[in-house]
């Protein structure tokens, strides 16, 4: 069956053209034909340059086309071509000028059939697992508060809208790289996007797309892409839906989520949690300090009451001492007053006593004076008495004198010396 793919119906030329021009014309037309071709690999040859050459044979008719796959494309395809393998190839054809041969230049290769795809998936998974690309300990922590986000997705799909709409507004700076995400053809685009994103200093890289069939997710099981993801300098989140098995890209990513919405939520969860934490911690610290103040206030009141009690006791004691002092002072005052009175009284008494003694002494002196006066020899002499002395000593008895003794007689108004002529003694004397 012949199918039309929009190729110009007819190109005519009256004038002959050169072989070169003809090949150029044909190649120009062939370049516009980008199709997928299904067939069986045969005559597989690998050149020393690494390029592969094979024929793709129509299983039913046996028709063949010559195919070439460059080494860089082959590496990117991540499919190990084998003789007899059913594949779908995509690319464009041209005529090789030197030989005039028709060659289909392969850009992508994918195995045909679920079984083949599954086999390829399992083998690659096993290989990369052995290398440790999916090891849990190799997974990096996605920053809790990412700011700059690299986003690799298709601008045409719903995924980008789901992602953007669910990204909380906390000032994210999102660098978007528009990429094909469908089928094997997306590999090249995804690899270029990853390379481009390495230039942006993002905190985290997100690769996302909606879910799809095994066929449509094929690119995400590509070995080169998986290795690029594992080797990316910052954590990678794969928000890629999956069919039966999780894609190898998701296994290699640091975090795998099933949808763009889940990816956006994951990125903002740190901020939501931080908001709750700030609210909670603010309340907790405030309450703690209020409790401290409440406790301290109670302690202060208790302390104040204690101090007040202490001072009250001191005051009471002071008052009691003051009372005692007052009483003592009053008592002392009374004693002093009394002493004063006593002193005055004593003074009067002493004075009186002294006066009395003085009077008594004066009277005694008077008496003595009177007595002396009464007994004054001169007074006696004036009364006619005389004092007789012998050799200066008074003569009281006639026994003290003898006859012819010289006697001095004192009179009131003079003395006389005499001589004893006769002594007459009294009988009773």
């Amino acid at each position: 069956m012949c199918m039309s793919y929009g190729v110009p119906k007819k190109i005519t030329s009256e004038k002959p053209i050169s072989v070169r021009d003809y090949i150029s014309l044909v190649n120009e037309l062939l370049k516009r034909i980008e199709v997928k071709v299904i067939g069986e690999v045969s005559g597989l040859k690998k050149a020393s340059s690494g390029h592969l050459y094979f024929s793709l044979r129509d299983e039913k008719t046996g028709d063949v086309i010559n195919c070439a796959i460059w080494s860089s494309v082959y590496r990117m395809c991540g499919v190990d071509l084998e003789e007899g393998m059913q594949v779908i190839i995509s690319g464009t054809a041209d005529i090789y000028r030197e030989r005039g041969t028709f060659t289909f230049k392969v850009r992508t290769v994918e195995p045909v059939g679920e079984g083949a795809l599954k086999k390829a998936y399992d083998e690659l998974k096993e290989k990369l697992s052995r290398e440790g690309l999916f090891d849990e300990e190799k997974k990096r922590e996605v920053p809790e508060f990412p700011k700059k986000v690299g986003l690799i997705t298709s601008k045409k799909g719903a995924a980008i809208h789901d992602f953007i709409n669910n990204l909380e507004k906390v000032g994210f700076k999102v660098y978007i790289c528009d990429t094909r995400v469908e089928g094997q053809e997306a590999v090249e685009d995804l690899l270029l996007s990853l390379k481009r994103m390495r230039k942006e200093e993002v905190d985290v890289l997100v690769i996302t797309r909606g879910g799809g069939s095994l066929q449509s997710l094929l690119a995400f099981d590509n070995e080169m892409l998986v290795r690029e993801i594992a080797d990316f300098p910052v954590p990678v989140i794969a928000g890629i839906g999956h069919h039966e098995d999780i894609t190898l890209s998701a296994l290699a990513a640091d975090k795998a989520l099933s949808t763009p919405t889940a990816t956006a939520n994951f990125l903002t969860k740190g901020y939501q949690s931080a908001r709750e934490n700030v609210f909670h911690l603010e309340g907790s610290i405030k309450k703690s300090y209020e409790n401290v103040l409440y406790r301290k206030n109670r302690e202060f009141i208790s302390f104040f009451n204690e101090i007040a009690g202490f001072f009250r006791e001191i005051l009471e004691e002071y008052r009691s001492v003051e009372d005692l002092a007052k009483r003592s002072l009053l008592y002392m005052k009374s004693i002093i007053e009394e002493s004063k009175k006593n002193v005055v009284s004593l003074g009067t008494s002493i004075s009186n006593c002294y006066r009395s003694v003085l009077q008594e002494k004066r009277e005694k002196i008077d008496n003595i004076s009177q007595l002396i006066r009464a007994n004054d020899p001169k007074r006696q002499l004036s009364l006619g008495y005389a004092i007789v002395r012998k050799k200066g000593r008074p003569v009281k008895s006639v026994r003290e004198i003898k006859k012819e003794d010289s006697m001095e007689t004192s009179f009131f108004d003079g003395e006389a010396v005499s001589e004893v002529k006769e002594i007459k003694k009294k009988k009773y004397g």
Partner: protein
Amino acid sequence: MAKKENNLGENLKKLSDISRWFEEREDVDVEEGLKKVKEAAKLIKESKKRLQEIENEFEEVKKDLDEE
């Protein structure tokens, strides 16, 4: 930019430390507690500022095909 993000994480850690500091002590000195509360208030203010609603920015970057 990274520094700001760290600040939010660090601020939360410091706030948690302050909260724990209060919880772990039976007797808190009022002055010392006040210092912590002042520090917490500053951290909360900074954190809230960082968490307030700000429109996200989107910039499309083009793949450089020549690099292939």
